[in-house]
């Protein structure tokens, strides 16, 4: 008992800054939940959901080094699982008006959290099926194969009328996702990721990214380890997809085009392949950035009717900004580093020393 107390004390001593930060985050969520309008609330929810999905993608692409583009597919699986199992039974007849829902599922309704977890597991199950043939491929081939499978999933969902209601999609999903749900789950997944990456399995993932041949020669089973990473990534993505469905209240196959995957690819490249904190930061930058640049799409952006301010300019500017970031930070914002307190301390020190070095020259008057 004393030992546990002692360990708890030591834990607090090491992590007090993090704990204060987490409390701060929780208070912010609480305040946001009370006071912000529904538009900002939805944006903040999306940030958290994109964080979850991008983390799943970064685990496979950034940490294990397997270039997989199946994210939209896994997200669809999670979203549809939640949709199918949480839609109120009374509403199902009106939603499935072309063809009634298959009797196997028609009378099953699950609590949100169960459906959400199920979405994760079903998604991981799909990853298992897809991973069998795909993970034997490397590099670009794997990317193309996973991209193909993500499209297959979407097309299958478009055609399984009695399960997914086909192209009509499923409406009136209870919109349970709140800031507490999305940020709570995002936080849990961030913590799980940190713990996983810093375990023996995390090192095995990274060793495969660094050098497959050496990893295999050191006794790391390539296929099994890649599969583990792929399935965990799909699990996270499925959960993210489930939250997404319960945020929008409606799912249909068109939401899960493969172009959606590029959103997440953008986030992990921008944040840094192999950085958890980078992914979190980039999720916010990309999600909020795309929204805040929306004024560029309006013809009267600066009070003048300039011909370039037309719908679509937002994406042009956004792409240009990305190019700038990628040019100056080639490995993304964080590279493979993590935003730890040590890292911040070091950054502050280097910035300080830069200022100190500049001072004498400023006194000399030969530079600004």
């Amino acid at each position: 008992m004393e030992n546990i107390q002692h360990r708890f004390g030591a834990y607090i001593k090491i992590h007090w800054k993090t704990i204060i930060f987490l409390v701060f985050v929780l208070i912010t969520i609480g305040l946001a939940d009370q006071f912000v309008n529904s538009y900002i609330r939805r944006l903040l929810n999306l940030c958290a959901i994109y964080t979850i999905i991008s983390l799943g993608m970064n685990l496979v692409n950034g940490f294990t080094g397997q270039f997989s583009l199946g994210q939209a597919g896994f997200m669809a699986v999670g979203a549809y699982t939640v949709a199918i199992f949480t839609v109120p039974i009374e509403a199902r007849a009106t939603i499935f008006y072309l063809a009634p829902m298959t009797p196997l599922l028609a009378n099953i309704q699950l609590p949100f959290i169960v459906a959400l977890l199920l979405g994760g597991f079903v998604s991981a199950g799909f990853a298992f099926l897809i991973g069998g043939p795909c993970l034997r491929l490397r590099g670009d081939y794997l990317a193309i194969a996973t991209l193909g499978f993500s499209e297959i999933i979407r097309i299958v969902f478009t055609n399984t009328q009695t399960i997914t209601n086909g192209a009509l999609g499923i409406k009136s999903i209870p919109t349970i996702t709140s800031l507490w749900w999305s940020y709570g789950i995002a936080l849990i997944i961030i913590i799980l990721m940190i713990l996983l990456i810093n375990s023996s399995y995390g090192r095995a993932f990274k060793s495969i990214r660094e050098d497959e041949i050496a990893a295999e020669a050191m006794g790391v089973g390539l296929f099994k380890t890649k599969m583990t990473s792929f399935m965990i990534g799909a699990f996270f993505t499925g959960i993210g997809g489930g939250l997404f469905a319960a945020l929008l209240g409606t799912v249909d196959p068109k939401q899960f085009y493969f172009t959606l995957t590029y959103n997440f690819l953008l986030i992990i490249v921008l944040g840094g392949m192999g950085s958890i904190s980078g992914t979190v930061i980039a999720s916010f930058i990309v999600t909020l950035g795309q929204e805040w640049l929306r004024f560029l799409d309006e013809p009267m952006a600066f009070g003048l009717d300039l011909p370039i301010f037309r719908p679509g300019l937002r994406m042009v500017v956004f792409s240009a900004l990305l190019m700038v970031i990628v040019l100056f930070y080639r490995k993304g914002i964080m590279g493979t580093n993590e935003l730890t307190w040590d890292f911040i301390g070091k950054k502050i020190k280097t910035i300080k020393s830069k200022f100190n070095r500049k001072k004498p020259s400023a006194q000399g008057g030969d530079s600004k």
Partner: protein
Amino acid sequence: MSLLKTENVVMQFGGVTAVNDLNIDIKKGELAALIGPNGAGKTTAFNVITGVYAPTKGKVLFSPVDSLGVANEIDITAKKPNKITNLGIARTFQNIRLFKELTVFENVLVATHQNVNFNFLSATLRLPKAVKGEIKAKQDCELLLDRMGLIDFKDEKASSLSYGKQRHLEIARALATDPQLLLLDEPAAGMNPQETDELTDLILRLKTDFGLTIFMIEHHMDLVMEISDHIYVLDFGCTIARGTPDHIQNNPKVIEAYLGVDADVED
């Protein structure tokens, strides 16, 4: 008692026979060397032994000693590289293959992953079994790094080490898999004389202190002749000579392979 045996191993790539009829017999506790001119098929032979390639013909037999001290002969022909490592054969690479972005400590720790007896879930949730395993692996690796003189570089990135230290780290990483047979692919390549001397000491220490059987490919003839017990010479995939260093040094076939034949003598 032989630890590793290859029986008539043939490795063909299309029409090219890289290794032809290789018969190796490495005794336990021995330091054997594989030499030969460039392109003789030495690395291919290593790749066949470690499972990177499946041989076209022939067998590779490994007799590791289990915890009870009993040697069981296992056919490891065309087994997966990680399975072979599990059985007790570790290797280094001719062109260093470290996990560059990982720290020195992590590099060595990866090699202990094969022994984990907990799944990823208990590792993530830090269940007691996983914590215990992790602590033990870390202790073992620290001890190993200490013995290898790398403990001061523990938290540095592998890519930031000097060339010689990287070679040492690669050997340390191979040792962390707890092997019975260590295959070194040109450990002294690109080293200066002082580094080569250090390496010679290290290899001898591996043999005596760690009780390892070592099989190495090497081009530094001084090094090979000084420390090996047994030498195999390959040329164009064929074993042209085998025996003790003295025997090899005076073998006309070996001299011919390395220096070529005088045109007059040939007639």
